[in-house]
């Protein structure tokens, strides 16, 4: 519900102020990686829903069940034992760009950026600050970022191969906006 309101708010802000523009995608990409002794754990989600407004607001949403692993058993464990994705089907991030003045959406270039906001995974919400880059190329925008997530911060416990997976996983965000 909160997210819907946030999106509506973004939409309203877009119509009331002509200077603001919203970029969006429904096929952004989020990957995660975790090194494990037996086999590295890697999965990709290609249905990341994201909106980026030129006033600095940024929203990402993804369905946990949309992560695809090479190994089917691993995918099952991830959903059932770690993420409990039937109970918590979504991960959401909503935040704002803190160095908006440094980004010129009308000028091609790669801008370093920092975003602060709230990340919700596994039903746990946490304030986070994440670094990344925004690239502008002939009017097209893309966002990239790589950061680590501590599983215990989001109350994620594995019951099956609990001890074997890393305490932190690396998350890579790569979204090209329409």
């Amino acid at each position, binding site marked *: 519900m909160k997210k819907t309101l946030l999106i509506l708010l973004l939409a309203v802000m877009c119509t009331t102020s002509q200077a603001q523009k919203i970029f969006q995608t429904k096929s952004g990409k989020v990957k995660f990686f975790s090194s494990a002794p037996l086999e590295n754990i890697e999965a990709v989600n*290609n249905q990341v829903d994201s909106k980026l407004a030129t006033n600095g607001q940024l929203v990402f949403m993804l369905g946990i069940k949309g992560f695809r692993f090479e190994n089917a*058993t691993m995918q099952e464990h991830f959903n059932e034992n770690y993420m409990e994705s039937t109970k918590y089907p979504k991960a959401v991030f909503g935040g704002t760009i803190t160095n908006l003045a440094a980004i010129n959406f009308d000028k091609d270039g790669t801008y370093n950026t920092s975003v602060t906001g709230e990340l919700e995974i596994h039903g746990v919400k946490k304030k986070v600050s994440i670094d990344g880059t925004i690239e502008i190329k002939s009017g097209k925008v893309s966002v990239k970022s790589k950061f680590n997530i501590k599983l215990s911060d989001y109350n994620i416990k594995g019951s099956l191969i609990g001890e074997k997976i890393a305490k932190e996983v690396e998350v890579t965000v790569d979204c090209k906006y329409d």
Partner: protein
Amino acid sequence: MKKKTKLALFIACVCITAVGTVIWFVWNKPHRSVEKEKGIKVTAEQLVIDYELSDSVANSKYLDKAIAVSGKVAATAVNQDGQNTVTLQSASLLSSVYCTLKKGQPVPAAGNTVSIKGICTGKLSDVVIIDAIVEQ
């Protein structure tokens, strides 16, 4: 005594091999294949209405299930990893059904009415269907 030890060793070897084989097969079991599943039949309009009414009720009905969604193709595209995507029109102005097709599937033309069967991963802006095949 020696014979007994040999027999015990032999049995142990057989057991270890059997357990190993079972673990190997469980670990390397194939991915779920939507082609073999029947699929819940629903129209794109109804699917979006169900999700707009209640995310949790709709999830209990559709999440992680194979569903065959019929509707009019509003748009097609190629995603960042080269997979084909199909957007099915709904009655809502805010939401559609966004399907990511499996490799090698024919891409229907915009305006055509099709049935797409895939796995539902819930609703973001759109209801999301992945690993999908085009049925007609």
